[in-house]
């Protein structure tokens, strides 16, 4: 982490935005999590917007954008707002996609691989354990490498797939950020992959829902570190 970025984090509150698309339903949870953790409500962005506000973190929440028609996230990934997000990502703005947001990011080509129907063919809604595979990222510096955290999952298509060459390259580059731990892989994901980032390290997608485990009322706060890291609420 550069000195400049650290100083920015200390001097001002990081700003975030939450993308809203028809069929997404976890946006309220995400807005609540970001507001509670950063002390500042995120800006909301509608799918037709082509100019995004000046923020440090853009979050695409979960849900069922466009009814999961064609493929999960496929239609959303082609909406105008995604071009704008792509441009921001190229400038280094942090982008986090959770659940359907992850599916949208892979469909948009911002992250490698694809998310397929769960191997069990069942929708899974339960708690899993995640291993923090890479703690040296903008999203995970609040954790230690190898730390096991709890997280809820709720999805039908979280079965991560990448061809052998891609898998090798993302492993080698440290792009696998989270793996399902202790036999809790809920969907048949290759190599137990639960979250991957792009090569530059500023775009992260994950199937689990960290926004639903951030305070005592949720039964724990294991997910808080992702937002605290991305919003530089903790010391970098």
């Amino acid at each position, binding site marked *: 982490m550069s000195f400049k970025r650290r100083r920015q984090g200390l001097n001002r509150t990081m700003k975030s935005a939450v993308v809203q698309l028809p069929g997404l339903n976890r946006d309220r949870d995400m807005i609540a999590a970001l507001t509670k953790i950063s002390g500042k409500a995120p800006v909301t962005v509608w799918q037709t917007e082509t100019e995004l506000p000046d923020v440090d973190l853009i979050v695409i929440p979960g849900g069922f954008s466009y009814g999961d028609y064609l493929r999960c996230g496929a239609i959303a990934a082609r909406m105008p707002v995604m071009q704008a997000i792509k441009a921001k990502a190229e400038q280094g703005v942090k982008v986090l996609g959770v659940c359907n947001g992850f599916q949208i990011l892979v469909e948009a080509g911002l992250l490698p*691989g694809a998310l397929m129907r769960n191997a069990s063919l069942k929708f899974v809604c339960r708690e899993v354990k995640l291993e923090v595979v890479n703690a040296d990222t903008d999203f995970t510096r609040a954790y230690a490498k190898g730390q096991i955290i709890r997280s809820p999952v709720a999805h039908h298509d979280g079965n991560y797939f990448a061809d052998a060459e891609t898998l090798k390259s993302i492993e080698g580059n440290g792009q696998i950020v989270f793996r399902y731990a202790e036999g809790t892989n809920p969907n048949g994901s290759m190599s137990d992959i639960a979250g991957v980032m792009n090569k530059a390290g500023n775009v992260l997608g994950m199937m689990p829902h960290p926004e639903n485990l951030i305070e005592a009322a949720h039964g724990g706060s294991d997910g808080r570190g992702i937002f605290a890291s991305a919003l530089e609420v903790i010391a970098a």
Partner: protein
Amino acid sequence: MIKARVTVTLKNGVLDPQGKAIEGALGALGFDGIGQVRQGKVFDLQIETGDQAKAEADLKAMCEKLLANTVIENYSISFA
């Protein structure tokens, strides 16, 4: 007007849990000897042009950009 059909199938080596489930169900119905079932998608499109070469080029672009996810799927285009 040109009528076209786009068929999207999973690439070899990509696990198809839905195909597997269908395979099992066919077996349960007494259909023996099914080696493998792979599920795919079919899109029928009507295109307002008489120029088949242009239609084919457009359809290819549609497949690449939306209809297929080329990370996991192949596509083929045929004309009625």
